[in-house]
C-alpha cells in the first residue's frame, strides 16, 4: 500500500513539470511573428524585412531566450512599443470597423440564409398534398399511358 502510494507520488512529481509546460507552451518567433506588426511598414512582422522589423524580431528573440511565454512576450512588446504593435486592431476609433464589419457581415449572411431557407420551405409541397394540380396530373397520366402502349 505504502509502495503504491510512493509510486503514485513519484509519478505525479515527474508529470507536474510537463503539465505546467503544456499549460504555458514555450514561445517561438515564428508563432509570434504573424501576430505582431512591423510598426514602420504597417505589415505583419513575418512579411517585413525593414530595419524596424529586424529590431523587433531581435527584441522578441531575446525575450524568448529569457524563457518568456507567448503572452509575456506580447505584453512586453506592448509595454515597449504600445498597443499598435499587436496585429489585433484596437476596439475604438476607426479600427473598431475591423471588428464590426465581419460581425455585421456574418449577421447579414445568417439573415440571408434564414430568409432563403424559409422561402424554400414555403415553396415545397406539404406531405400528403398532391404535388401536381389536377390538370398536370391528368396530362402526366396520359403521357405515361402513351408510353405503356
Amino acid at each position, binding site marked *: 500500500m505504502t509502495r503504491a502510494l510512493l509510486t503514485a507520488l513519484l509519478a505525479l512529481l515527474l508529470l507536474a513539470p510537463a503539465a505546467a509546460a503544456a499549460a504555458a507552451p514555450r514561445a517561438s518567433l515564428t508563432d509570434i511573428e504573424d501576430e505582431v506588426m512591423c510598426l514602420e511598414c504597417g505589415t505583419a512582422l513575418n512579411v517585413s524585412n525593414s530595419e524596424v522589423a529586424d529590431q523587433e524580431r531581435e527584441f522578441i528573440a531575446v525575450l524568448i531566450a529569457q524563457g518568456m511565454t507567448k503572452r509575456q512576450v506580447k505584453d512586453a512588446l506592448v509595454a*515597449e512599443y*504600445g498597443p499598435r504593435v499587436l496585429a489585433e486592431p484596437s476596439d475604438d476609433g476607426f479600427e473598431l470597423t475591423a471588428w464590426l464589419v465581419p460581425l455585421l457581415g456574418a449577421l447579414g449572411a445568417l439573415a440571408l440564409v434564414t430568409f432563403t431557407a424559409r422561402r424554400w420551405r414555403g415553396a415545397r409541397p406539404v406531405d400528403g398534398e398532391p404535388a401536381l394540380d389536377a390538370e398536370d396530373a391528368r396530362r402526366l397520366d396520359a403521357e405515361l399511358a402513351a408510353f405503356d402502349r
Partner: protein
Amino acid sequence: MRARAYWPVTVAAALLVGLLAYGLTTTGADTTLDSATAKGERVDPPTAASLPVLGGSGSGSLADYRGKVVLVNVWASWCAPCRDELPLIQKAHKMLSARGGTVVGIDVKENSGAALEAVDEFGLTFPNLRDRDGSFVREWGQTGYPENYVIDREGRVAAVRRFPVTQKWLDETLPPLLEESA
C-alpha cells in the same frame, strides 16, 4: 419594384465609399506646419502631449522647455540617415545649451534598450522622449526619418526640416532665434 430591390445595395455601396473616404482622409500626412513655416509664420505645436522619458521614469513634454530655443530631433537607431546625423545634432546641442537652448530627441518606434545603446554609442547628452508607436510625430505631419523641428522661446514652431539637417541650415536657422528674448 425594381427600385425596392436595389436600395440595400445602394446604401451598402454608399457606406463603403464613405468608409474609404474616411480612411483616406485620416491617413494622409498633414502639411499645415510646412506651409506655415515656409511663409515665415510661427505656429503652435500640433500637440503638447507628454511622452515617456528615455532611460528614466515619468514623462516629459516639449512644453517643459518653454523659454528655450528647442531643436526637436526625430530619430531612431534603426534609421541609417538618423545615425549619420546624430553627431551633428549633438554638436548643435552643445552650442544651444551654452546659449539658452537645447536639443530634445524624439526616439520613434523602437525599444528603449536599443535606443539607449545608441545614446551611449553617440555620446548623446540631450534629453530624449519616446514616441513608442509614432503617433506623436504623426501629429507633426512626419513623412520620414530623420526630421527636425525648431521651436522658439515662446513655444511656437519656427522651422521644419523633413530630412537630415546640414550645418549650413543649423547656422541659418538657430542663431536668429537665440537672439530673441522670451
